[in-house]
């Protein structure tokens, strides 16, 4: 596709070489407008639309003048207040995501730090092993845990030391801890790699300077390494928090109990339910808003970073 365009442009060589850049960027831009931005408007039109009377499938309303606020108001009314049954699920989502991200960081930071600073000649091998789970299908990794957490699975057998103790934990029946640990397990690889890249980039000379000036190891970490790695921490937190926000399958596979429903489950439950499709739209917009704000902050900090760098 690109070739055809450029063939034409080359003939007008010299006079309009600048047209080449828009011509290169346009197909992708148009693609995103048609298949990314426009569908988001369809979500809005369905949220503010109605349902057909027979199958109760959504009927979008395109013109904002005619928008029906019913479904939107329904969701808002049920987030807070006496009937706010969506509220607890949203709070739960926030708690799960925050706890899981914190745990991810707690695991990922030392591992990334060791790999970047201390691994020495095994660094390549270590890095390859760390990257491996990144390439293993998420579903495969969840399946692995489902096998282990079955009632007669290895976890219970290990806990009971092969039958010495009588341990029958139903790990897969609605335990918040199972879901949070599942999230940690699923998303930790996404955090280690950017952290590694960030920590690896800190010049060793800086650290040595700190030590030469009398700082001990802890001081060096607190006053030099940690501040310098902060941008990487922010990026890695973003890269794990945002996908977790939209996650419903971890929950479905490891719990399937309403007690552990997250906002992703709210979306997934209503998106195919006749008459509730618009509510899925409302939650989609909610997650969109929650995701866009940290992103704007990130872009701004990034821009600042770029300026500092150049």
């Amino acid at each position: 596709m690109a070739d055809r365009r450029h063939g034409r442009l080359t003939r007008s060589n010299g006079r309009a070489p600048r047209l080449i850049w828009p011509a290169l960027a346009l197909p992708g831009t148009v693609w995103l407008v048609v298949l990314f931005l426009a569908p988001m408007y369809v979500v809005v039109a369905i949220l503010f639309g109605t349902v057909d009377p027979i199958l109760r499938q959504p009927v979008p309303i395109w013109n904002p003048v005619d928008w029906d606020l019913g479904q939107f108001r329904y969701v808002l009314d049920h987030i807070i207040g006496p009937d706010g049954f969506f509220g607890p699920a949203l709070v739960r989502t926030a708690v799960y995501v925050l706890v899981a991200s914190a745990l991810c960081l707690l695991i990922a930071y030392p591992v990334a730090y060791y790999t970047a600073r201390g691994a020495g000649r095994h660094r390549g091998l270590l890095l390859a092993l760390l990257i491996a789970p990144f390439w293993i299908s998420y579903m495969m990794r969840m399946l692995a845990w489902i096998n282990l957490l079955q009632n007669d699975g290895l976890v219970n057998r290990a806990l009971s030391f092969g039958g010495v103790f009588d341990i029958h934990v139903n790990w897969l029946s609605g335990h918040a801890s199972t879901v949070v640990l599942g999230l940690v397990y699923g998303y930790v690889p996404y955090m280690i790699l950017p952290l590694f890249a960030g920590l690896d980039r800190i010049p060793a000379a800086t650290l040595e300077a700190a030590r030469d000036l009398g700082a001990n190891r802890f001081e060096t970490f607190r006053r030099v390494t940690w501040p310098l790695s902060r941008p990487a921490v922010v990026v890695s937190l973003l890269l794990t928090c945002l996908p977790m926000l939209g996650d419903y399958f971890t929950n479905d596979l490891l719990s399937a109990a309403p007690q552990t429903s997250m906002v992703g489950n709210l979306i997934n439950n209503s998106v195919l339910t006749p008459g509730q499709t618009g509510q899925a739209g409302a939650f989609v917009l909610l997650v969109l808003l929650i995701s866009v704000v940290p992103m704007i902050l990130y872009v701004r900090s990034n821009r600042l970073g770029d300026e500092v760098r150049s």
Partner: protein
Amino acid sequence: MSTPRHNQGLSRRSFIARAVAAGVAVPTLPALLSACGASDTTSGSASKIPAPNNPVRWPISKKNPPIKSGQQIQAGTTLRIYNYADYLSPKLIKEFEAAHNVTITLSTFNDEDEALTKIASGDLSFDLYFPSYDSLGKMVQADLLRPLNHDYINNIDNLWPQFKNPWYDEGWEYSVPYTVYTTGIAWRTDMVSEDIAQRQNPYDVFWDPKYASNLAVIDDWHTMMGMVLLRNGIDDINTTKASDISLMRKQMMQMLQVTHPKVTITMYNDLPAGQYGLCQMWSGDVVNAVYYLPKGQSPDVLRYWFPSDGKGMVDNDLMVVLAQGKNPVAAHYFINYMLDSKTAARNFGYIGYQPPQRSINPNEIVADGFVPKNLATATVLPRYFVEGSRLLQLPPQADNEYHQIWQEFKAGG
């Protein structure tokens, strides 16, 4: 379809706006329907809701006429079936393929809401679909079905006589029954020490803190909510009374707090695996569960309760031919094949769900080896269809209320 006038104005305006704004995106059939002014949601369609005391004969579709008689399956074609997982014997599929030189593709769905949405999208052209009877009316009214040509389905005579003229589809114009089942309670004697059937009100177990995190309910809104109504002696499990509905809601939220149920439809795997000791269960699934027990585990541990007076939930699933399918002839042949006594019995052996076949004598099901002795209660008797409660399509207003409560339940309260 009569419409209040103010609605018409509004929908026409939005229709034009839609047409202008959309350009590329033309609204689909449902959109057109409502734009033509059918926002009539309370009256009119209510009379079209079939019930045992309100039998309905559906009009024959003009858009999708029945197929002509006397046709043969074209060799080399594909028959596309849309069904629940593990609900059709793969061996029977292979034999049908071999006998008629066709390819069958089996696609599965998790619940009927998902299935209806995908069917309504019109992209998939499935030939044969297995709904429960309460969604039949909606599908006929949305013109998604093709009326059956009875000439192809002479095996209908094998069925219990009542199914030759069911109240939800008089004259079986669009559907034939596939299976019959009750909804009761199943448990494992090695994980639950009491005999639940001996309880004054066995449904109470789902609110008994003793069984917290050790139980599951069925992930199907009406089936689960109907159980809550039955617990309170409300036999009309399609009630639209505000007090009944609010009582139901209260008790569902209570259940969440007290027993933390798992909400799923995979009991036939989870119960044998010992993931919980007790669950709401379809009779067919508990029979099927026997085959999913781990090696060496005796099926004796499984028990099933359904009220012996028949006053519980009793249902049947259907086979229907979808209008969007490209191979309605093969679909008719397949329906007739599944109604054959031998095929039906073999399918019963695989899926655990009983077909309403006359040749299968409910009193001899245990002796014939279809169902182990300890699960004799899972047998479905014809009289249940007189005594039991049926899940009906709800009027839109109530349907909406039930769905909202279900959503609240699934959100975890």
